[in-house]
């Protein structure tokens, strides 16, 4: 049922799901990312932490080429998804359907709940009503939202609460059956209860997807992630097992940041 399962099997020969190598990124003259090396394994959750403006959002926006929208932005280095260069021959719409994204502020479209989730598949040419309904139900279930909205699929998505909207956005990207989900501070606009639900959800989603989550909350990083990356001024300072990074960081700057001495 889930084509990702198939992909995972046929492509298992490849070591990493995602492999970033020597990545530099410039906004006009300003270098926002400096020589980044980053690897993500299958079914792994990586947390990105670091002070404001250090390039976390910029980095994950490289991974689905959302930075293409910014004219001044230039990228060099290699970003390989399953061994394929995403800046090479790969079609950008294809890339984005394989690497989904959830934004800081929930941004459901001004459409019904159903249409929001079905949107991506429809745009990819799926017209069959039964299949669409199935995609919507499966995605909403995986996003832990189905029970709350199953009676109001026709209602506007904008009438949902903030937390529900964010889970809807997660469902919307799950519907594309992506391989990686990028989340940019997905809970920063939510209350603690809604945040807790999303964190639980990440634990569930990990079974099917690789996830990269940007967060400012240390405890969130330590709760949900397997590995943690610490960014500072456009550099990837440290990237290792979450427990290691938090209890026994290699770099002094990581330790300072985690213990709240700057940032």
């Amino acid at each position: 049922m889930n084509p990702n399962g198939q992909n995972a099997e046929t492509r298992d020969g490849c070591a990493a799901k995602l492999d970033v190598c020597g990545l530099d990124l410039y906004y006009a003259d300003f270098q926002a990312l400096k020589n980044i090396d980053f690897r993500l394994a299958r079914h792994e959750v990586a947390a990105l932490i670091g002070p404001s403006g250090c390039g976390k959002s910029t980095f994950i926006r490289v991974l689905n080429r959302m930075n293409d929208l910014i004219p001044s932005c230039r990228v060099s280095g290699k970003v390989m998804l399953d061994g394929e260069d995403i800046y090479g021959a790969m079609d950008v719409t294809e890339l984005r359907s394989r690497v989904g994204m959830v934004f800081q502020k929930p941004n459901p479209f001004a459409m019904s709940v159903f249409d929001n989730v079905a949107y991506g598949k429809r745009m990819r040419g799926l017209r069959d009503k039964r299949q669409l309904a199935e995609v919507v139900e499966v995605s909403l279930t995986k996003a832990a939202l189905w029970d709350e909205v199953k009676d109001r699929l026709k209602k506007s998505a904008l009438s949902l609460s903030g937390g529900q909207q964010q889970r809807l956005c997660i469902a919307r990207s799950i519907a594309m059956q992506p391989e990686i989900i990028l989340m940019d501070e997905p809970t920063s606009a939510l209350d603690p209860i809604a945040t807790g639900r999303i964190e639980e959800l990440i634990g569930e989603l990990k079974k099917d997807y690789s996830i990269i989550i940007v967060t400012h909350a240390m405890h969130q990083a330590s709760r949900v992630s397997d590995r943690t990356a610490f960014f500072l001024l456009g550099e990837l300072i440290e990237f290792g097992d979450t427990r290691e990074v938090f209890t026994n960081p290699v770099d002094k700057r990581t330790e300072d940041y985690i213990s709240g001495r700057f940032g």
Partner: protein
Amino acid sequence: MKKRVFLDGLLYGIMALSLCGVIAVLGYILVYIFRQAAGSLSFGFIFRSAREGGILPMVVTTLYVVVVSIAISLPVGIGTAVFLTEYSGNSSLVRILRVAIETLAGIPSIIYGLFGLLMFCRFLGFGQSIIAGAFTLSIMILPVIIRTTEEALKSVPVSFREGSLSLGTTKSQTIFHVVLPSALGGIVTSAILAIGRVVGESAPVLLTVGLSRNIPRTVFESGRTLTIHLYYLTNEAVNPDDFGIAFATAGTLVMVVVAINTLTKILTRKFKNSQGDAS
């Protein structure tokens, strides 16, 4: 402290007064028109031909002119606005184009009339006809439609576009399925403004559509819009009865405009509901 509270109250008072003033003037005009029209305005007046003392031909001509000019200018205007905001970037050519559009918006309508007369009536051989007038008026209202649509498109949050693109949709899919529907409110406003201008225009219409009092059967015939008719009635009015008829025509004109705008709004709401928008 006292002073701030006082100032606050004063400002509130001024604003409330302005609002009352606006409502009073509008209300007075409407009441005045319909009181003056009371003796002449009737169902028969609106739906009888000119020979029977009615103004049906003018109503039909007006509707024709409005529908045809909007049908021409709305797609062209929206297309231009989408291209300018979404595709063209900010090259110097585009900046020149923007200035040109703004200039077009400021040209007096009689000049459009003159152009239309020579271009559509004479050169293209349409003669004085609804289609010639509609083309002329379309060009005249294009700048309005382009500018308001551009504003509407710009006000659609970036997050909508990003949300759509991040799902692997193409740029045009994003524009047609997310951006344009979200900008619909502003686009409808632009259409309503444009309709208002078309209905109210006299000089270019007189030059291009003409004066015929027959009910036009096709858009290639000449006709007389309500506004032109009203102009002639007022010009030629001598006794109170004539003024009654002029005011009845004015009342009809007001009702036609209100009817078109209401219909536009209803259609928009229908469309939005089919999109699942809560409103």
